[in-house]
């Protein structure tokens, strides 16, 4: 019986892969309950270039609660349900910028072996230091404005911290996956996982401060919605 389900799921996947228009999008909102933590200001005095970019000080980007009461920068991805399927890594790179002494994006997903294009848009020295436990770590000095370097992650790992030792407030997080089904909540608290084939999945939502939550979701060939709620610590 179970086998039959797998078979029909596999069949459906094939069908959907052939007709991408019928793939579903799993969307949703990350709600935030409770009082948002006070926004901390980071002192950037030591690097005049950073100070110039933020004369009034820089707000910490660890927790961003949107005006509509939702949480930004939550990484949502398919944790399980795709076993045994292989997905080719896109050639299109994920662009990771250092601008105004901050990382952009702060939280992002990337596929295994997909190029990560690291850009320094600042006129100051940054170092990009990744701290993966599965892939080879890198620590690159980027002293020239406009310079670009390319790197990849070779093994899935959620999440990989990226930090800058020159500016200790700078940190970013990469969710490295062997499939393309992930999203990050935006200024509205919305996330989207596109082209998800029908099936049963465990979806995980991860936040730097508030940890992770999982949900089981069944996806048919129609777009679906799901929601996560993080509570103030």
């Amino acid at each position, binding site marked *: 019986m179970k086998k039959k389900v797998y078979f029909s799921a596999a069949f459906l996947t094939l069908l959907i892969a052939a007709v991408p228009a019928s793939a579903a999008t799993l969307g949703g909102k990350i709600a935030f309950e409770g009082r948002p933590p006070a926004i901390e200001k980071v*002192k950037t*005095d*030591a*690097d005049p270039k950073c100070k110039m970019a933020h004369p009034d000080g820089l707000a910490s980007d660890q927790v961003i609660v949107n005006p509509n009461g939702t949480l930004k920068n939550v990484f949502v991805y398919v944790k399980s349900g795709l076993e045994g399927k292989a997905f080719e890594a896109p050639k299109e790179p994920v662009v990771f910028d250092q601008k105004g002494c901050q990382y952009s994006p702060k939280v992002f997903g990337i596929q295994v072996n997909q190029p990560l294009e690291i850009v320094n848009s600042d006129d*100051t*020295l940054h*170092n*990009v*230091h990744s*701290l993966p436990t599965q892939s080879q*770590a*890198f*620590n*690159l*000095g*980027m*002293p*020239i404005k406009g*310079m670009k*370097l390319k790197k990849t992650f070779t093994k899935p790992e959620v999440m990989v911290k990226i930090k800058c*030792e*020159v*500016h*200790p407030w700078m940190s970013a997080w990469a969710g490295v996956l062997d499939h393309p089904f992930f999203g990050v909540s935006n200024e509205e608290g919305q996330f989207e996982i596109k082209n998800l084939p029908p099936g049963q999945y465990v979806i995980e939502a991860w936040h730097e401060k508030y940890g992770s939550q999982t949900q089981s979701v069944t996806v048919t060939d129609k777009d679906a919605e799901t929601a996560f709620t993080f509570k103030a610590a």
Partner: protein
Amino acid sequence: MAKPSPSLYSISKTFVWFALVSLLLLGSLIAIVLLDHHRDWKNWQKKFIALKLEKTEKELKAADEKLDKKKIQDLRLEIARTESDLKAHQSERAARRKAAAALEPRLARAKARAQDLKQFQDSYKYFFEEYRVLGDRRAADFEKKLAEIAPRLTEAKADLEDLEKESEAKKAALEAFAQKEKDLQKALDQILQEKTRVEKKIANVKPSLAKDILNAPMLDFLHPSLQIQQIALDGLEDDYHFAKTQKVDRCTTCHLAIDQKGFEDAPQPFRTHPKMDLYLGAASPHPVEKFGCTVCHSGNGHSVSFITASHTPHDEAQAKEWVKKYHWREIEKWDAKMLPIQHVQAACAKCHRSVVEVPQADKLNRGRRLAARYGCFNCHKISGFEDRWKAGPDLRRVGSKVDREWVIRWLQNPRDFRSSTRMPQIFHLSNTQSPDEKNRDDAAIEAIAVYLMKNSETVELSVPPAIGNAEKGETFVKQLGCLGCHSLPGIKGGDAAAELSGLGSKVKPEWLYAWLKNPRHYSPNTRMPNLRLSDEEAADITAYLLSNCNDPFEKSAAPKARPEAVDQMLLDSMQGTMRHADAQKMLAGMTDEEKLEALGKKSIAHQGCFACHAIKGFEDQKPIGAELSNESRKDIHQFDFGFVDIEHSRRAFIAQKLRDPRGYDKGKVKAYYEKLRMPQFHLSDEEIESLTTFVLSLTDESMPLEMQKRPDLREAGVEKGRLLVSKLNCNACHALDGKTGALRALTEDPGAAPPILDGEGAKVREKWLHEFLKNPTPIRPWLTYRMPTFGLSDEETKTLVEYFAYLAHENISYKGAEVPETSPEKIEAGKKLFGQLQCAKCHEVNADSAAMGASFLAPDLTLAKKRLKPEWVKKWIEDPQTLQEGTMMPTFFADGQTPITDVLGGDAKEQIEAIRDYLYRYEAPDKTKGETREAKIPIANQAA
């Protein structure tokens, strides 16, 4: 009247006797031959042949399955087709051959004709030209002939060419037939090669009539396929009590696949050796021709039977199994019994002498470490381990640290105070359980406490300047690196030193404060280093450590010595040297305190406390333990098993001794001072096994020099360093020499962990390292961990410097800072790069950056020229991550490419060198003189 016998004996009876004896002789002969034919090892060899046959047949099947069936099928079909083609065209082939042959004369004729005609033409031409010049009228004739012969010659040449073409085509067609067949056969052979190889192998292994005949009784002296295999070992001898013979190992007679890969899962005795890369192979460090089997495993190598080879089961279950299967029994007369597999590493020490640790011998090494940890070397003399340090603290000033009551409670059972303590239990053990013996134990305990207090020097202790903050103290303990050696209640740290628990119930605050400030002030030989704590730090840590108390211990009873027990024990101890009446008289003249002190001295001497602890009055005393230098070869009859019912083997004795050191007194009648004295260490099973392996490794057996691992000068230097590194416990913090630093593992961010010291010898200058080790100064201001001052002697410092240098294959030079040769242009380029790469952003400490939090600070680069070796600096700038995993220093030359193209032609290698050269001439700006960040550059090529 009976006729007298013509002879003196009855002939018929003689015949009968003769027949009987002959039959008996024949029977014996047959029995001998049969018994010889059915010897154990022959059966094993036959079984192995069957196994090998089965395995090879499987291989054949696998090889067969691996073949591409379709391809073979196609090939076979093609071959068949070619063959049938060949056959079908046999007649045509013959005809062709015939035709080809028949062509030959025609060809020859045609060739001759063409040649003839050519000759005629040439002669006609000659005569025509000749006559024409002479004006002869015959010239016209020849002209006519010449004209006639030309077309005939052309025709003949064409004919010849046609024929040649025909002949070549026919030959090629013939050839093609044969070639095609050849190619196909070759392809087929190639594909079947593996199969053919295995088939041949099977033919070799498979029993055959010829082999049976060669192995038959009486014929098997010729060239049997079943043979005893043996390895003769030069320079090694087996001891047969009073007779020594050359060592010969016949183990491979049955262990037939020991050095053949592929029998890893086979049943014994046919299994492949599990560590082929380390043993047996010609390329391994222990080739079988040189080391044989019994050098490591022990046992009787001459034997070819299971029992007399002296196999040893690894546990009782296996012993039972063996008895059932092989009627196994222990061979009492053979001394060098096979080492049970769990202790086999004991044999490594035979050849690997003078090394701190034997590579890959984890259990033996663990045993050695445990022996040092529990102070085994302090009580037992063991040759090769004389240079070990005392395991327990110095008690010559103990009165400043703890009080008498604490010592009494502690000695009752040290584990009541701290369950993780290394201090063994000495009193109230299984052999002193009677009420009288308990009283004597209590008397001895108080007496020892009295002796220690009375014979303690007083140390000057200073009071903390202010009451410390325990919370801050806790942070310091966790951040300074204390956890490298100490654990905290509930927090697992190192176990080289005592767990920091219950100190509030043990030590005086002023002692702890003074101890933290300078451990050597209290104990000149302590292994605890000086953390260079400020008064405030020391006060805070003192407050924190004293906040942890052990209430049940404090409330527990501290039994008083009964005077009659004290008297009785003193009388007993004086028995040998004094008359009873004199002794009694002497006692009568002593005060209670004096008696206790006298008994304390006697008790310390009796129990051997001074072996692990320095105690006043026992400076020259010999330790009480038996020498263990040759324990693994001590005669089994010299072990006193008493009434303990265990297997009578060395390893069983040792394990039981470690488990219950006083247990062999069970059931014996002994006076108090005759009883066994080894204290109870409360060892775990795993510790007992490792320690047993260690004790079984202790031997004075002399191995031939060429078999021993003998260190050269550099290796000896490394070993000397290793011992010191283990004493100082450098690995508690640093990753070094194949060991991961314990504190490094505890630290989440590798950039904030104590540095990796692999390759340190290639990195830093010997002169700098020497100075640093003597007097450490911070290099990495961002680390909370603090490199302590170990108070090393010059000799110890030298040992460490050499250790690091030799470990990194470096030569030692105590020369100062040598500056690499360069040019002013290069320095200028280096300066430019230094600015463009913004090195000073991290490598310069200023007030602003310090206020941001310390995480991004980097070493002061003015240190570089004194500290670092120029070659290393280049490698470091090129790729810091490979030299120091997780370092905060980024690479600016990712994949060997530079981001700056307009300096030195964008050549990364040149640029790195330029930065290095600049660095060796770099001076930090002197802010007091109003200097900016501009560095001063001295003239090139001048030593700094």
